[in-house]
């Protein structure tokens, strides 16, 4: 252990780890987020193993191409985020603003596509509770005929709808929060609040953003592709 008497004069803003509080705090907070999504994904796994027959074949009810594009967009927004951070590290205020605005816009687009997807699915007949009575999907499932060049739809999709909406919904909620915080950071950037020496806000929101992005890649894989 360090010998206290050897230390220099007390410097109270000096963090013990050498990493500023905001960054340490965000990493810790993300630990909590990991557990939250673990609870959701763990429940998904348990429910799906218990009732595999309630899951539709991938691509049958959910539109993979549209969501794949949306996924690509979200990954792009991580790139723009990195660009924004790199810009302010070089003191490039214009670059910072431009890349932050791009990130906000892409994030907002992602959420909008998701909302559109929900509306479309509900119209087609998939609700958090399962099929919507009298909907196209419900009728097709009841008649037992092949749906969209695939096999017949499952007779019941209660758990499918439940897990789909809950998992993607909570991810969407996280993206929405991220967009709001990012908008705040962008606003501060336009007021010249970040400098080469101090751009902690950009870095901290970036950590959160990359995390939410990563979670989506996992969710997209297991919810849409598997």
């Amino acid at each position: 252990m360090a010998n206290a008497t050897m230390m220099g004069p007390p410097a109270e803003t000096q963090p013990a780890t050498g990493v500023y509080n905001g960054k340490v705090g965000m990493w810790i907070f993300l630990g909590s987020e990991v557990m939250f999504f673990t609870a959701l994904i763990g429940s998904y796994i348990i429910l799906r193993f218990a009732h595999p027959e309630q899951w539709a074949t991938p691509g049958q009810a959910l539109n993979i191409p549209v969501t794949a594009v949306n996924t690509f967009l979200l990954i792009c927004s991580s790139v723009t985020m990195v660009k924004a951070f790199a810009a302010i590290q070089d003191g490039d205020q214009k670059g910072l603003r431009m890349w932050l605005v791009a990130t906000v816009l892409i994030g907002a687009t992602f959420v909008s596509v998701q909302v559109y997807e929900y509306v479309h699915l509900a119209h087609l007949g998939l609700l958090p509770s399962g099929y919507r009575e009298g909907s196209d999907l419900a009728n097709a499932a009841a008649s037992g005929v092949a749906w969209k060049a695939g096999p017949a739809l499952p007779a019941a999709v209660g758990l499918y709808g439940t897990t789909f909406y809950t998992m993607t919904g909570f991810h969407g909620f996280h993206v929405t929060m991220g967009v709001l915080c990012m908008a705040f950071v962008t606003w501060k950037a336009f007021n010249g609040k970040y400098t080469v020496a101090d751009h902690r806000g950009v870095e901290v929101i970036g950590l959160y953003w990359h995390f939410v992005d990563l979670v989506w890649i996992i969710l997209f894989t297991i919810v849409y592709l598997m």
Partner: protein
Amino acid sequence: MATTAAVVDHATHAHADDRSFIRKYIFSTDHKIIGIQFGLMSLVFLALGGTLAMMIRWQLGFPGKPMPLGSLLPETMAAGGIMLPEFYVALVTMHGTIMVFFAIMPLLMGLFGNFLIPLKIGAPDMAFPRINMASFWIAVSAGVLMMAGFFVEGGHAGAGWTGYAPLSARPDLSGVSLGQELWCLSLIILGLASILGATNYITTVINMRAPGMTWFRLPLSIWALFIASILVLLAIPILSGAAIMLLFDQTIGTNFFNPATGGQPLLWQHLFWYFGHPEVYILILPAMGFVSDVLACGSRKPVFGYHSMIYAIISIGFLGWIVWGHHMFQSGMNPTLGMTFTISTLLIAVPSAIKVFNWMGTMWRGSIHFTTPVLHAVGFVAMFTIGGLSGVFMSSTPVDIYIHDTYFIVAHLHYVLFGGSLFGLFAAITFWYPKMFGRMMNEFWGKVHFWLTMVFYNAVFWPMHDIGVHGHMRRIYDPSQYDFLKPLAPVNTFISISAFLLFATQGIFALNFIISWFKGEKAGRNPWKDTGLEWSTPSPAPHGNFEKTPTVYNAPYEFSVPGMAEDYLPQDQKADQSRAPAGAGH
């Protein structure tokens, strides 16, 4: 920084506090004020949870008799003063919920996490003071929502503090819809407050320790709060996730826990207890830490086995994650899996026992000053030992299949939560009260409160082991309906009367707390002659805590060091300085 200014102005700490009343006491970002706010809120909830317990005990001790003042309750709760079964289950549910989430947990983490961490590590405040303030007000709004449940149509949630599905998930089964939804919503919101708090505490301990405050110079109270914060950080989101799923089942028709559509009620149990067992360690570890501090000071000896105490705290925090199945032995679990959970649960008794032996080692041959806090700390050790031992019984599957869901469990959980956490809290409150309010609590009434509490507490909870083994079920409305429970009626009456006396005794504490606030004897900086950094500041400590950032030279419990003028060596005093009566003129 305010503290630096004070150094310049060394004669009087003259950084005049020009914050408005609201900034200073309502929307304060000062960790000490926020801690005290949490404390007052939780004490109110403690009183409320206790009141609910009194109603429960009335019904069990005097089933079917009109409750005193019962006529004040609306007809939907008590018809003609006689408690209705629906109201009874709501009372049991809310007693547990309030005590765990709104009394004990915010007292340990909200009050003492906030109050002690910066003071004891030598920091001017928390890492994120504004998030800290937000955390308190989020917790308050969760409390308001939880209380609102009593006044809504259909009554409050009645599925127990563990909220087992499908009863909790299906209003058509329970007859409760809005109450149960508010229960979920409130816990989700409270969870957010807890996670923000934990993030703050962990960052603060990691990053804001004063120079020289190495990890192995941290007092055990801080170690315990630190590990408990990690448990909060990682366990609470599981509860939040589960509560969200439950809320969705109730409101938007999802099927997580609904067996009719393939949902899995057992999933709720797994999620709840995967959170729930770490939660019980959140509820005990901080108390263990406080008791270690108080016992060392009271015995004028270093904590016996300081390092082993830390390793015990860490291993309890770790093992706490792999024992949750011991709450589910009756759920039809595979016996091999049950055996695994039995073994892991027995394992956790080992670090717990290490701690108990170390406390005894600390007191052994110490010159113990039996002040009120020390009495409570000794009471903690004794009562926690009993609760831990009954836990060892229950961790064995064959035994637990017999006593599960009986009053034996109620006895266990009250020995660890009341005998453990609450006695630990009484020790901590009476010990740090002078630092919070600048005045001492009354010693005489403190001792009266301790002894009466000790006697009545055991009169209430000890017999519960016995009626539990006789098969008395938990959460039943009317024991007189079962022939095999009829012979136990006098015991139930005895327990209830003792409980009323126990409750009344707490009035002494409440009065002592309030009156001492205004009239108590003024406390100097260090009334207990303790070694912690918090005692080097004025009582109460000013905004910003320290006149100048302390430098730490010593381990946390340097009591009775040979060759010293005083029998204690504060953490921020060099060994040779203390020969002169340093700081006396300060």
